[in-house]
Every structure is written in structure tokens, then in C-alpha cells.
């Protein structure tokens, strides 16, 4: 049977030679919701990553001069909560042998993997999960999205600067809504403004008539809303016009409710609404133009980027750059060390990672909804440069 052993050896040899000539695969595990109520996150992440790879190619040259193929392994959290996330992370780390984790649309999902990644020192690129404190949960967390206070505080400053003095707040009755109400009112009153009324509305509220009556009676300069994207914010804007608040000269302020990819759900009532956000879809930076053009080419003219897209783009760019500098087998601490000092090349505009907090520092844009060429879009009217998460400034890290 020697000929047989020889044949096997020859085949094995040729196989390994073949593998050596192709680029070595570096797997990145991406966990997000692809089905269920939050399905849109996973899809937007994936489309932006595919756009990035369509432009930059799938391989990156490592420090050793070899090509490495970056391969995303997608896992669906099926909108099933943190237990599922933990299970998926274990599977990706142990079975798929991924080098890094990415994704995480909801905050509890990101928090759920802290223990596991601490044990194996695996970098985690958080592409949404906006609860301010999250990056403190693990030294291996890097966030490329935003925090709620980061969005809200610049809006309060802009409101005061533009002459608004009396504000009524209607915020959604869940954790991000509390953060928004808390940080907005603190900043606005600190500047000398006045919060003359504040209501919390149930998370899925769609019947805003009564709230608008209360606002009308209070006669504020502006109404500040923080509502989940989708039917609550659409219904609020509708009630705002229908009840004559717009005609009464009460301005409407918000925090990213008017994302372009959801704008179809609004009608012209939404024109004039002013929101703050870290990404304006109409910005003309070359990277954003490139992202939009590629998405259109890959997925058709209706495909619109959102904050998930830019975060996935930036996260992928960070991953490419760290593999290029450190190769695929560096220690987790090394990757984190590289990433936390990185400046981002982002379609959103200037942004960098805060080396102490491993969280994003970025421009915040004040935008007004306008109609351009028959389409409702956000147009930048002001920029607040390089905002650091106010929550972290308020809660400095404990020195051990």
C-alpha cells in the first residue's frame, strides 16, 4: 500500500501548497438582528460592509507582505435579546475562530459579550449600541457609533444660541428617552433656558393629540421630541401640524428621527423640523458620495445609507487598517491599542477615537428637513465640532 500512502501525501502536499498561494482568511464575526423588529440594523450593516469591500477589495496586505482576506461571518440575533447574543459570540469565537467581533445594534447585546471577550482578549467593534456607559464594560470595546448625550447636548446648545428660551419636551418612556430628557434639560437650563413642561409618552405611542393640546396651552418657543424611529415619531410630527403648533410658530426639535431612509413615512408636514445627528445623508464629503454611489450600484436607487451604514463602514475600515499594521494574529491588547488612537476616515465627516474611553469623538450636525428635487432630505444648517460624550465628562473614570 505504499503507492497509496504516497498518493495521499502528494495530494496533501499539493493542497497545502494551494492554500498557501491563496490569501489566508481572517474571519470577523458580526452579530446583529437580521430578522424581527430590529432587522433593519443587520441589513444596513451588511450592505455597507459589502459596499466597502466592493471598493477596497476583500484582501489587505499584512505587515509581512502577505495578503489576508477579510471575511465577515454574519450571525442573526433574531431580535431575541442578550442571551442569544452570548451564545452566538461563543459559537463565533470557538467554532468559527473569528479574530474580532463587530455589529451590536442594541445596548444589552453589546453588554452581554463583555465577559467572554475579556477572557479571550478579543476586540469588539460596536457599530450602534448607544448607551453612554457601554465602553466602560470591557477594555476590548471600541465604539464607532454615538451616544445619546452626544447627540442631545449640542442640540440644546444650538436651540439656546438660536434664540429659543422656553421648551416643552415629549420624550419616550424608555432608557434612551430618559437620557435624552435628562441631558437636554440639564444643558438647556444651564445655559439659561427654561423647560416649561415635560411629558413621557409610552414607547409605542401613536396618538399624540392630547400631548399637543398640552403643548399648545403651554405656548413654548419650541417642542423637543425624542421618539423611537418609526410610527411614534411619524405620528408625533403629524399631530404637531394637525393641531396647529406649526402655525402657532412653535418649532419642532428632535434627535435623528428624520433619517432619510425613513423619510417616506413622513409627509411634507416634517419640513422645517430641526434635528441633531452625527451623520447627514446629504453631506458632500468624497467618502459619502462614494458610499452612496456604491450602495446605489449594488442595491438599486432606493438604497439609502443611515447611521448603521456609516458605523459599519468605519468599523470595517478600522479592521482593515489594524490587520494591515499588526497582521491577523496579534494580541487583543495590541489591536485595541492601535484602534483607540485612530482617526476615522468616515463618510460622516471628521471623527476619531478617544484613547482613554475607546469611544467616538465626532462632529455633530444640526440639520433642517427640506424638500430638494421633490425629495425630503436633511440639510446641515450648523456644525458643532468634535463632541466628546458628555456622559463621560460628567462621570470621569475611577482611578484605581
Amino acid at each position, binding site marked *: 500500500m505504499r503507492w497509496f500512502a504516497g498518493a495521499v501525501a502528494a495530494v496533501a502536499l499539493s493542497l497545502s501548497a494551494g492554500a498557501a498561494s491563496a490569501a489566508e482568511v481572517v474571519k470577523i464575526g458580526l452579530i446583529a438582528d437580521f430578522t424581527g423588529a430590529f432587522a433593519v440594523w443587520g441589513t444596513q450593516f451588511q450592505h455597507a460592509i459589502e459596499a466597502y469591500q466592493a471598493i477596497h477589495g476583500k484582501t489587505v496586505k499584512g505587515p509581512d507582505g502577505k495578503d489576508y482576506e477579510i471575511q465577515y461571518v454574519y450571525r442573526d440575533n433574531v431580535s431575541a435579546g442578550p442571551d442569544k447574543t452570548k451564545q452566538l459570540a461563543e459559537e463565533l469565537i470557538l467554532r468559527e475562530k473569528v479574530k474580532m467581533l463587530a455589529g451590536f445594534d442594541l445596548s444589552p447585546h453589546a453588554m452581554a459579550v463583555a465577559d467572554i471577550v475579556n477572557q479571550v482578549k478579543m476586540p469588539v467593534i460596536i457599530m450602534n449600541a448607544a448607551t453612554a456607559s457601554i465602553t466602560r464594560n470591557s477594555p476590548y470595546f471600541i465604539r464607532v457609533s454615538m451616544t445619546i448625550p452626544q447627540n442631545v447636548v449640542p442640540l440644546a446648545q444650538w436651540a439656546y444660541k438660536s434664540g429659543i428660551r422656553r421648551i416643552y419636551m415629549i420624550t419616550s418612556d424608555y432608557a434612551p428617552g430618559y437620557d435624552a430628557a435628562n441631558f437636554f434639560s440639564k444643558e438647556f437650563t444651564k445655559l439659561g433656558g427654561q423647560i416649561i413642561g415635560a411629558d413621557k409618552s409610552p414607547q409605542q405611542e*401613536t396618538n399624540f393629540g392630547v400631548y399637543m393640546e398640552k403643548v399648545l396651552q403651554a405656548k413654548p418657543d419650541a417642542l423637543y421630541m425624542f421618539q423611537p424611529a418609526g410610527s411614534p415619531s411619524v405620528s408625533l410630527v403629524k399631530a404637531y*401640524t*394637525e393641531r396647529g403648533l406649526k402655525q402657532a410658530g412653535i418649532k419642532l426639535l428632535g434627535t435623528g428621527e428624520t433619517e432619510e431612509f425613513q423619510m*417616506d*413615512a413622513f409627509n411634507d408636514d416634517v419640513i422645517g423640523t430641526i434635528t441633531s445627528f452625527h451623520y447627514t445623508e446629504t453631506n458632500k464629503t468624497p467618502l459619502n458620495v462614494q458610499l452612496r454611489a456604491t450602495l446605489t450600484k449594488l442595491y438599486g436607487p432606493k438604497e439609502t445609507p443611515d447611521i448603521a451604514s456609516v458605523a459599519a463602514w468605519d468599523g470595517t475600515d478600522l479592521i482593515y487598517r489594524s490587520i494591515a499594521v499588526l497582521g491577523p494574529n496579534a494580541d487583543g491588547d495590541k489591536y485595541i491599542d492601535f484602534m483607540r488612537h485612530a482617526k476615522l476616515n468616515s463618510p460622516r465627516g471628521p471623527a476619531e477615537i478617544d484613547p482613554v474611553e475607546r469611544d467616538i469623538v465626532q462632529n455633530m450636525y444640526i440639520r433642517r428637513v427640506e424638500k430638494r428635487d421633490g425629495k425630503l432630505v436633511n440639510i446641515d444648517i450648523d456644525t458643532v465640532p468634535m463632541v466628546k460624550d458628555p456622559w463621560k465628562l460628567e462621570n470621569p473614570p475611577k482611578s484605581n
Partner: protein
Amino acid sequence: MPSLSFAATIILDGISYGMVLFIISVGLTVTMGLMRLVNLAHGSFAMIGGYIAGYLTQNGYNFYLALLIASIVPGILGGLAEVTLFRPLYRKGELAQVLLTIGFVFVVTAAVTGIFGAFPYPVKFPDYLTRPLDIGFRTYPGYRLFLIVVGAIIAAVLWYVIEGSLFGARLRAAVDNPRMARAVGMNVNVLFTGTFVIGCALAGLGGAVGAGILSPEPSYALKYVVLFLVVVIVGGEGSFKGSFVAAMALGVIDTVGKYFFTEAAAYLLYAAVFVLLLWRPQGLLPPKSVA
């Protein structure tokens, strides 16, 4: 402090909201009372109506034509579902009914997400319904007045049909005593299907006209089914008048509650239901068979 005109506004708000609940739920009350079917799928027909109206109005069709089609299609679908899916369930237990009808909701939800996407899908109302209207002592949303008018017309027509026509007499007889109704030779099956069709058509209409308050979205059927069931139970299963009174009462309680106790409003409605049911466990105006 609330003035008289403000009190009137709150009442109008409550009534217009109640009208939407009434239009959607009245079909459910009759089918639950008549067929003893625990039908959790009723909200899907309202949702289908809302999406059809949304699709047609967004594509430039006349609003009233859209309303018509938004009632006819769910009516036909309801009739088909009754004959093929629900009829075999009448003699099965409540568990089988709950399982099948909730499964139906999931199927419709997935279909709607597949066709129209995960975002809310608005109905485009005519311009004159989206503006505030001067009603003498103040301006008030034209849309809400429109809801009150539509609801009142439907209630009047239904009242006439149920109290004044032969069909209505048969319906009442079948609700009060289905076995006796069969015994005297009524074709209860045809009556069931007919009622189901009308109930689903009204749900579709309610979903379409009410889209400004309960906006069409994939989770609609599941999200609001509790409200519709509450109207039926508080009014008394099978009672047309009861569902009207209950819908108005719940609309007004919810609105007043939201104004005075905004933070607790989400619970207040259910507290009110709790008290009402303690007081009248069979509902406010139950039909004779259970009274």
C-alpha cells in the same frame, strides 16, 4: 387651567379615537358573540385595510376610492378565511382557536413586512383633512372631525340594519340562541359568513380611516389587538350597542387620562377596564343570551 373650549377639545379627541376603535371592533364583537370564536386575527384585517389605503393613496388614487377598496378586499379575505380556516374551529376548544388565529397574525405580519418593508406605511389623507379647521371657538384637526362623522354614519347604518332589518333580526336571534335559530330553519352558516365578511370589511375601513391615529406597520395586528378585545369584552360579547358605548368610554377615558396623568396613562386605561369589568363582568350592555 382647562377652559370650556379645552374640555370640548378633549371630549372630541376621545370620541374620535373611540370611533376608530368602534369601527374596527364592531365586527369582532359580533363574530365573537355569534360564533364564540376567540379571534385574535381580527386586527390583521384592519392592518390589511390600512396598507391597501396607504398603497393606493401614495400612488395617487382617489382617497375615497382607496377607502372603498380597503374595505372590500379585507371583506373578501375575511370571507375566505372564515370558510377555509375558521369554520372548522368553531367546535374546537379555545386553545385551538387562539393558536390558529395568532398564527394567522404572524403570517399576515410576515407577508406585510415582505411586501411593504418594516417601516410604518402612511395613508396619504387629502390636504383638507391634514390641516386644522376653524370650528368657531378654536381650530381643530379636520381629520378628527372626519372620523367622528364616518363613525357616526356607520353606527347609524348598523343600528338600522341590526334593529330594523330581517337580517338584523336573524343575527340577533342567532347571537341570543344559536341552537334555536338553527332549529327554526335559519341557515346559520350563511349568516356566519355574511357577518364575518361585513365585520372584516368594517375592520379594513377602520384600519384605513384610523391610519392617522393607529398607523399601519407590520406589528399593527399584534399591537392593537388588545385594544380591540378590550372594546369587545367591556361592551359585552356580541353586543353592537355595547361595543359602541365601550369604544366611546375607552376613547374618552384614555384621552382624559393622558391629559391629567400623562405618565400613568398607559396603565389608566387598563385600570378603568378592571373596574368596569368588576362592576359588569358580562360587559356594559351584554346581549340577552348572557344577560
